[in-house]
């Protein structure tokens, strides 16, 4: 109702303005006024508007800086503090320039409005002045570039820390799966061709390959049976679609064959995936240890964005990407800092990925090393989640008490 009233007011305002302009035009005709002749009153009015606008605009800018300036709580990662510092420096620089330039712009616009009795100052160029505003911005930018790149290089540095936490963040429309390595501290080999209902990441093992091929065979079989039984009654387009599907499934089988004959298969990396732990809905990380993220996507490009950690990286199908960071504040401590017992860190999707793009988030929980280990131990391994058919379960249980690394 309120918005309707606003709308009506605005529409009536426009109508009024248009009517006024008609009256004005009629009057102008009578006075023999020409549109291109800007009267002193008009020049003065606009000049004053420039000055008034400057004051209003500056007041609004300052209000926003104060009211909304502390946009995000303190950074919860080590490199995030560097980014925040760099950001502050940059904001100081650009805010200074912003005010300086606008003061000049609006002040001149106010001061030098047209008067018949004066002539503008003929001032076509001045090498000295032009040098000033070429050299000074260059110096400021050189500073910004060097400062920024040093921090960028630190963040993207590839030197691994001694005891990093490895995590794979795997995205699909519209959720995230988190994979932790098991006791062997190694993320097992996976391939998109092996993805199935129970194997969302396509983790490989000899059994799973056999199972997947059987699954595909079964599907081919059922389509062939269907074609044989009802083929004559189906519209030709549908028959074609089904035949096409058989063709695709057979190619899929061939690709799986390639996987089973790959280097990874012969070198025994396949077994590394069996004790990996797959988690949905929560990303747990210990405080104070460097986290090495590997990002993957199975369908379209997503982007894993963790604003509180000043961390983000795209998830690109076919090209694993990496990012590393060290969380510095546990969820509990952050709850005290922001004075909100409900607070949670979050990982969002930040690359448009389809209809439910805005519903693709997962909670991030930062906890102490002990809590983290305890939580991780409580998670099922991949082979356990498959129903415990594989033999690896027992192995992994024997060594599941990973020594807790603390310096």
């Amino acid at each position, binding site marked *: 109702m309120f918005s309707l009233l*606003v*709308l009506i007011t605005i529409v009536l305002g*426009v109508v009024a303005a*248009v009517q006024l*302009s008609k009256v004005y035009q009629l009057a*102008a005709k009578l006075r023999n006024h020409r*549109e*291109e002749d800007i009267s002193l009153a008009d*020049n003065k009015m*606009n000049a004053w508007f420039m000055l008034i606008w400057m004051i209003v605009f500056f007041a609004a800018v300052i209000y*926003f800086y104060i009211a*909304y300036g502390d*946009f*995000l709580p303190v950074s919860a990662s080590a490199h995030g503090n560097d980014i925040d510092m760099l*950001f502050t420096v*940059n904001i100081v620089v650009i805010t200074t*320039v*912003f005010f300086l*330039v606008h003061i*000049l*712009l609006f002040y*001149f616009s106010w001061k030098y409005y*047209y008067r018949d009795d004066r*002539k503008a*100052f*003929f*001032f*076509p*160029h*001045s090498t000295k002045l032009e040098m000033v*505003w*070429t050299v000074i911005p260059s110096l400021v930018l050189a500073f*910004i570039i060097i400062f*920024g*790149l040093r921090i960028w290089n630190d963040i993207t540095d590839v030197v691994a820390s001694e005891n990093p936490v490895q995590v794979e963040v795997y995205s699909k429309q519209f959720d995230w799966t988190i994979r932790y390595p098991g006791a062997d501290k190694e993320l097992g080999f996976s391939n998109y*061709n092996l993805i199935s209902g129970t194997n969302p990441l396509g983790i490989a093992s000899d059994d799973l390959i056999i199972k997947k091929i059987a699954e595909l065979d079964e599907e081919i079989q059922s389509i062939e049976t269907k074609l044989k039984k009802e083929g004559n009654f189906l519209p030709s387009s549908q028959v074609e679609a089904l035949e096409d599907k058989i063709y*695709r499934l057979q*190619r899929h089988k061939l690709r799986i064959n390639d996987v089973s004959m790959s280097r990874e298969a012969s070198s025994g990396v396949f077994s590394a995936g069996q004790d990996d732990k797959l988690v949905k809905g929560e990303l747990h990380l210990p405080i104070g240890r460097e986290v090495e993220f590997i990002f993957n996507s199975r*369908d*379209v490009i997503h982007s894993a*964005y963790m*604003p509180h950690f*000043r*961390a*983000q990286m*795209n998830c*690109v*199908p*076919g*090209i694993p*990407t990496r990012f590393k960071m060290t969380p510095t504040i546990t969820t509990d401590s952050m709850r005290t800092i922001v004075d*909100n017992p409900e*607070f949670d860190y979050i990982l*969002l999707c*930040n690359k*448009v990925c389809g*209809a439910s*793009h*805005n519903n693709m*988030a997962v909670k991030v929980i930062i906890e102490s090393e002990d809590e983290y280990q305890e939580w991780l131990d409580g998670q099922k391994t991949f082979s356990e989640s498959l129903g415990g058919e594989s033999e690896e379960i027992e192995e992994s249980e024997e060594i599941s008490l990973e020594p807790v690394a603390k310096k």
Partner: protein
Amino acid sequence: MISRQFLITAVFMGIIAVLLSVLFRIQLGWPGESFEILNAVLGDRWAPGGVMNQNAYLALVTIHGTIMVFFVLTGGLSGTFSNLLIPLQIGARDMASGFLNMLSYWFFFVSSVIMIASLFIETGAASGGWTVYPPLSALPQAMPGSGMGMTMWLLSMVLFVVSSLLGGLNYIVTIVNLRTKGLKMTRLPLTIWAFLVTAILGVLSFPVLVSAVVLLLMDRGMGTAFYLSNIFIDGEALDVTGGSPILYQHLFWFLGHPEVYIVLLPALGISSEIIATNSRKPIFGYKAMIGSILAIGFLSFIVWGHHMFLTGMSPWLGGLFVITTLLIAIPSAVKAFNYITTLWKGNIRYTPAMLFSIGLVSTFVSGGLTGIILADSALDINVHDTYFVVAHFHIVMGMSAIFGMMAGVYHWFPKMFGKMMNTKLGYVHFWITFICGYGVFFPMHFVGLAGAPRRYYDYSNFEFLNVALDLNPLISVFAIVGAIAQVLFLYNFFYSIFRGQAAVQNPWKSNTLEWTTPVEHIHGNWPGDLPVVHRWPYDYSNPQHETDFVPQTVPLGSDEKDH
């Protein structure tokens, strides 16, 4: 005249794009609330019960961006003013090839029709954002908007590029070959310099977009995998593999970044001309202005990677792009300060065109400064693809470039239509647009800094984004008021075409050649011989002359030096 065809088509496209933005601002300002108007415009399929659905939202955002960037600010801005001003300001009878010129308009027209038509098809228009990144845009399984709508988007784009290339080649040839006697390159108005560099950028970069689009069409319909790899979607592993989605981004942004300057340079050229004329002062640092246009044009080709810092691109390469990107700030700073010095000790006449030009300088500075944050790869990590980016490029393109276009329309309206627009309505239009523009886009920075991703349909699920929830209704109100204010412009524009005051030959007392032609359009522009140029176009308030302007056709006095 072709410029009028371009302008009116662009105005029409602009109306549609603004309406689309009003629709999605309603959703963003009051998420989930029911509005009759949404249901009335979008229908039951896209806005059941007056609440638009997610697919409709994404389609609106995508088409709004596409129309604004390509159809209004590229086709509309360059098409209108290059075609109008190039022959008139260089003293040519016509463009080098009238036929190519006509083709460029009709390709533009057909491409506009296809783009608009794509809004009406069953699966909806393209919805992957105006950059249409694959695999999302390559796979119809991924979203309804990647179906027929996407194909139409791509076809429309190919035709658009054809139009742009035909136009661009024509502009370059005309400027290089058809300048009248005495019009050296260093006596060209800055508008022409801007159009020349714009056309060169377009000719060099648009073909790359075509290649990106054609490869994407092949991935969609011919079973290739230029952009597809390791994909499992819709319960099935994709049959083709081995491509790279990042390849598309490189190709797209190789056009995409020069495109920003294709949009902005004509606006800057137009405002240079208008600011000098209405300050009654020569543009300060004419040669530095030409230098910065050339520098911006060159640098714009080697900065595209700053859109891709987070794609997994080598950090070293990212660092290189940081350097080249931030370098662009230097010629931009030179331009901004030169504008301000032109105003200094001027004698400023507040025509609506002048107001919009000053607005352009203000927004060019505001938007440029936030670009410094985004160009810094380390800072980009946290603001990439958030509302901070949206705020940044809307202040530069949605305000600065549009203001340049508006300024151009008010300034050259007498030349185009032989009539004057109403000044008072122009004032009201400017002030409401200026205030609402900042009202929309300034608060958006803070929404972005709070971590609000762009292209989200609804932010209310996230507690940490309360800032966004606070500010979104405010932004939406400004957007709606700003959109309604454009009715004033439309009224003024169309009313003045038919019933406006008749124009005189040189209403703004300007120096350039277009004001030496008769008010009525005649074939060949000048009735007798072509004018001969004796001086640069910025002899305003020259102390050696009585009047405060000296047209380019006035011979140099014996005691006068060339500028």
